[in-house]
């Protein structure tokens, strides 16, 4: 299985811009399926980005974050070729993680 996480991290000068897209249904718990059954909530709660063991960004998400969530931020102190670790955990306890190279 391919990772659920897609990352683009590009360094320019002292700043690294990070964009991530994650494959996840982000079911809100307010939607019914074709049979009229409520689809139970299923969403990522926390997403973390780490560089050299230090968290550079932490997201707390509720079910109002769009399906296949996207986030963009920038941080200082990293260089090209550095590792950036991304991980998430959802409300059912599922997780995924990936380590990307900063370009």
């Amino acid at each position, binding site marked *: 299985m*391919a990772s659920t996480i*897609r990352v*683009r991290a590009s360094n320019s000068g002292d700043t690294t811009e990070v*964009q*991530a*897209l994650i*494959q996840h249904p982000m079911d809100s718990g307010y939607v019914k399926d074709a049979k009229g059954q409520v689809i139970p909530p299923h969403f990522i709660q926390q997403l973390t980005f780490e560089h050299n063991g230090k968290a550079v960004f932490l997201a707390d998400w509720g079910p109002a974050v769009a*399906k*296949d969530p*996207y986030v*963009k931020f920038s941080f200082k102190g990293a260089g090209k070729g550095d590792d950036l670790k991304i991980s998430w955990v959802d409300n059912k306890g599922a997780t995924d993680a990936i380590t990307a190279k900063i370009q």
Partner: protein
Amino acid sequence: MRVRTILLTVAAALSTAALACFAASAIAAPDTPDPVADAKAFRKYFTDKFPKVKLEDFVNGPYSMNEDMRKQWKEKEEFPPYEFALDAGKEMFSKPFKDGKTYADCFPNGGIGIRQNYPYFDEKEGKVITLELAINRCREANGEAPYSYVKDEMASLTAYMAFTSRGKPMDIKIPNDPRALAAYENGKRYFYTRRGQLNFSCASCHVQSAGEHIRAEVLAPALGIMNALPIYRSEWGGMGTTSRRLVSCNSQTRAVPLEPQSDEYRDVEYFLSYVANGLPISGPGSRP
């Protein structure tokens, strides 16, 4: 009573149409199909209606004509929602079938950069062959079960094949074969024919009302509408093939959709692709 309203509306629409036709048929000469003139007139209609939109930008549908939406689109395109489908499609495309062959063995140029040549008219068979149909024929020829025309696998594969063809001008040919011309005419007729309880044709929305709102959506212009397929629609929360697009359009007019890849759908794709000749492939696209 509801029935009464339905019928009255239809009757009124039909009688108006009948009147208009009386007037027209008195002057108009009998038609001989002329795709070259059609394409020219089709293009002129849209460029006259939207003088600020660049010709090659029509393939971006509603985003070519609404600034607020264009901005939302640009932001989505930074990391587009079809990204996962594209990756899946690339993987599927290169994975060999049970017999060891791949999609590359079924298509010209190994299947890369060829989206703009579909659909084409097959003179042996006497029918229009769409990319989706060709993909399933490739699968069946190699002992694999065909994909559903409206589901994710087909959308992912065509997304990848479109992606490798981005920017290439649509290049649909009508061979010198009366059956090809007939297929083209049939597609044109399908496009302009009113259907469903709402009495809408494809053209009602995508020609006459292109650029206008239905709820929050801006209706896509028909010119170049095929160039963006397949598309990720936020409304669907997922990808959709050309087949799915046609089926859902029919349903919205409250017509019972035809079977995917029925002659009518193949022919209308042929017509719409032909009149968009020269406009770049922009698929996979994302749409509200």
